[in-house]
């Protein structure tokens, strides 16, 4: 058997794949956080809860209406996005003129409520959600065995991240968004409805979290707690990457996922704190974050 640094190649690649999968979710979630933060200047603490909500929408669609994975892939982000927009319109929009910390506290409360509701009905144990038949099984790549669904997750997360980046950098709506981030008053004066843009942005960010959730449902179990543990790691990712650039958030997400996977190979005990350690080191060397422009 091939060995690399005294570790069987199979195990090494296996953990690297797990890292890549985790990194895909870090990237998608920190992308959503960065999109929301860029426009609303609010850190969306409820992002983890919305991710869990997305997974549960998929699970409940299957359980109650017998709607499978593929329609759920569209419906779950839609539901989460619409609920997000309703919350933004009725409550979050009242906080824009206040210290950004209020937004963090409000969305923290929101996260507790969403999580509390699902915990009340489903307890803390996970519910299984099967991968769609088309993606069952795996492919032998010669050097390792790749479960098809995991490959699908990596590819779709890359597509989602790239697509969001293109939509913001290259489309007209994206240009409006970026302009409104720079100077909302001026953009409003040009006749663009900035409040609607804000609502759409929060909806888009929430929908991204919901999409990540339904993608995650077959990989991890659907559990009310799946979001809250993840969101804290994603916060560390965001601190490392800095929220100045969307691409920065995505790249940092993948990098830290891989770093976590590597740590699992060499020193498993430290695998769930390695992201935080990297965060501390980055704070020492480059306090503004790897891609950050703000101090």
């Amino acid at each position, binding site marked *: 058997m091939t060995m690399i640094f005294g570790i069987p190649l199979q195990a090494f690649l296996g953990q690297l794949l797990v890292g890549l999968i985790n990194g895909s979710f870090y990237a998608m979630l920190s992308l959503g956080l960065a999109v929301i933060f860029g426009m609303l200047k609010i850190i969306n603490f409820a992002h983890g809860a919305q991710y869990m909500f997305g997974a549960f929408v998929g699970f409940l669609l299957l359980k109650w209406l017998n709607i499978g994975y593929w329609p759920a892939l569209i419906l779950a982000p839609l539901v989460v996005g619409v609920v997000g927009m309703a919350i933004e319109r009725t409550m979050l929009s009242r*906080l824009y003129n206040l210290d950004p*910390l209020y937004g963090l506290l409000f969305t923290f409360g929101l996260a*507790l409520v969403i999580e*509390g509701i699902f915990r009340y009905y489903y307890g803390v144990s996970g519910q299984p959600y099967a991968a769609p038949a088309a993606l069952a099984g795996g492919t032998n790549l010669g050097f390792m065995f790749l479960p098809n669904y995991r490959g699908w997750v990596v590819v779709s997360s890359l597509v989602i991240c790239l697509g969001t980046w293109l939509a913001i950098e290259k489309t007209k709506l994206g240009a409006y968004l970026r302009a409104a981030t720079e100077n909302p008053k001026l953009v409003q004066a040009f006749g663009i409805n900035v409040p609607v843009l804000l609502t759409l942005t929060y909806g888009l960010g929430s929908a991204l979290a919901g999409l990540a959730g339904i993608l995650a449902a077959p990989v991890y179990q659907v559990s009310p707690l799946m979001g809250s543990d993840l969101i804290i790691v994603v916060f560390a990712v965001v601190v490392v990457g800095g929220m100045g650039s969307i691409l920065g958030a995505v790249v940092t997400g993948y990098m830290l996922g891989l770093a976590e996977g590597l740590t699992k190979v060499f020193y498993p005990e430290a695998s769930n704190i390695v992201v935080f350690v990297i965060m501390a080191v980055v704070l020492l060397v480059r306090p503004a974050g790897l891609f950050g422009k703000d101090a």
Partner: protein
Amino acid sequence: MADLTATPTEAKSIARLEWLLVAIGIVGLLAAPFFLYPIFLMQIMCFALFACAFNLLLGYTGLLSFGHAAFFGGAAYFCAHAVKVWGWPPEAGILLGTAGAAVLGLVMGFFAIRRQGIYFAMITLALAQMFFFFCVQAPFTRGEDGIQGMPRGFLFGLIDLSRPLGIYYVVLGIFLIGVFAIWRIVNSPFGMILRSIRENENRAISLGYSIANYKLAAFVMSAALAGLAGATKAIVFQFATLTDVTWQMSGEVILMTLLGGIGTMVGPMVGAAFIVTLQNTLATSGFPVTIATGVIFMACVLLFRRGIVGEIYARLLGGSKS
């Protein structure tokens, strides 16, 4: 722009009102164990001290820490380990817990003060989560079981803490000493500089203060006092578990402070009493505590950001600025 940490105008009338409240409060607490369940009262006092210590940082320095559970729960572990495994007397255990929390605060603060605002909040949250994972894995915390059945012992070898009134008055003493220390810090020249950092950080820098040192000092003091509260709680309940180091606990202390009134001396105590009472009531009703906590959080932020005590002050002063 309404600032998160803006205090109500500190007029003379408020100072007089606070002294009156303090006098009533102390008399009330001295008499309370004859009317109410002492364990319940001690729980409130521990959390009230915890919230006041947190408020020292948020209300008077303008730093929102999302990781104070690490100091509260960490100190509980240190104290429980010293008392149960090493057989230390309770006063030494509490001191060790406080000192341990101060050291943790020094380390966490060192990293966290490099960023401001929401980044500061996220960094403290991440570092506290790291400490949580450490507690899950370290053998001395005994994982999911926690350290249980620690003896209360005798304070200074004299006062029997296993008697309800004995421990009650000791906890009351610790609570009063802790709150007095916070009051002294806030009303000292040092406290004034902290407030100037809260009001306008750049101006404080331009006046020549090395604000990083002041922030770090405030962070360590707040951590140590939160540790004092946590270690005392461990003695009262005779155990230390993972619950006290979770991020939910960090959120709870924020809620207590926000609900009572950020930047007021009495507010965090009122908030703590309210939340502890609510939790004890809900625990028997079957309604999930998390949902209630979340709803109160949202309502506080949307409707009364000054908190219960802050709103009362604002009403008493007549002016209703928002």
